[in-house]
């Protein structure tokens, strides 16, 4: 039995790959090899909707589509990770914050044994 997270990923992959909105029955048929019940498909779809990854239209039966492309979601995530707004610093701990080109060059000089590497006391802020 696959985990919910795994099912969500599988369903999203199908929706992203589809040419347009897809109904739950079509999804179930596409995933026939996994033997999913239609209610399971609906459960996973509504979870994805709650998380804001999926939208549905008003047709009967309802058809589902991804809210944004996979690339857009990845870009959104990276934008937040690389951004420096206050609350995000508390939301995740990044290994190293971004520095500008000049500072990056200075850091490389430090590693090469250049300016100031000799003493911690030289670390003016």
């Amino acid at each position, binding site marked *: 039995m696959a985990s919910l997270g795994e099912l969500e990923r599988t369903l999203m992959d199908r929706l992203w790959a589809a040419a347009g909105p897809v109904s739950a029955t079509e999804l179930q048929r596409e995933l026939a090899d996994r033997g999913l019940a239609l209610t399971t498909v609906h459960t996973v779809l509504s979870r994805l909707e709650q998380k804001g*990854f999926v939208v549905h239209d008003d047709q009967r039966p309802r058809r589902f589509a991804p809210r944004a492309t*996979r690339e857009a979601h990845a870009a959104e*995530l990276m934008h937040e990770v690389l951004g420096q707004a206050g*609350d995000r610093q*508390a939301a995740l*701990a990044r290994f*190293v*914050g971004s520095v500008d080109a000049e500072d990056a060059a200075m*850091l490389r000089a*430090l590693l090469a044994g250049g300016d100031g590497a000799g003493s911690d006391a030289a670390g003016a802020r």
Partner: protein
Amino acid sequence: MLPATAVALGVLAALLAWPVPAALARARWPRRDPLAALVCWQAIGLAGGLSIIGALLVHGLAPWGHSLPEAWWHWVTWQPSTEPVRGDHWVAQTLAAVLAVELLGVLALSGVRTARTRRRHRALLELLVRPGGVPAERASAGETLLLDHPAPVAFCIPGARPLLVLSSGMVAELDGAQLDAVVAHERAHLREHHHLLLLPFVAWRAALPVLPAADRAHDGVRDLVEMRADDVALRSLSGPDPRRTLAVAIVAAAGGAGGQVPDGALAVTGGPVAVRVRRLLAPADPLPARARWAALSSAVALLLVPTLLLLLPAVV
């Protein structure tokens, strides 16, 4: 009347609002002992809030009793004041209430907001990333994800189900020992719950934008948790020169992401990162035990003074 207590608390609040954080932010010893310095910052934050709200409360409730607990009890049980109540007493009471509600409210709001951001990040990651992308020898904890992105980025999302994320750019740029150093650094953040140390300072910087000390304290704590995580990471690293390995990883991660910062975003200057690299390459002696105890006892004293002033009946 409790004039002496209110004045003493007011003086303490003023010291903690300006000269004390300024001195600690300027001091050089914190980078030799980040943990002790982190304890000092937490004490400054707590004692500062306690003393300013306490000073206002003590003054505002002075007509109701001779000590704060007594006056407070009389006030909440609607007993008449023993001395005439002037306008400034009402003003002090109101200010104390407003400040307490603002500081605690902003802290709660900030906590809720970061929790929501974390939940969304986690949901996005679970959707975008298939587990098991990370080389097996480094995925021991099972919560390490490999995010397909060219920028060398590593981060962790703290919480009940912490996640550690490496970008494919990071994996491509670093060798095995350096990746181990990155992972050890992020694990140190998670294990020591550094996000909880930083959260109040993020909140209070938002609550008190006019107070330079709030900025200083936030930046100080932010940089110190990084240094602390570096120190903890070094302990678990093997290899001939773990300090240099970690320093190389830091520089690689900082240099590669340089072009990725969107315009208008406030980029962290080389300052704190350079300090981290310098103290790895040319470590200063650790703080002597005596100095460390002095720092820790000052932190305890800082918390005890306002607490005692508030709880002990006024002597005057």
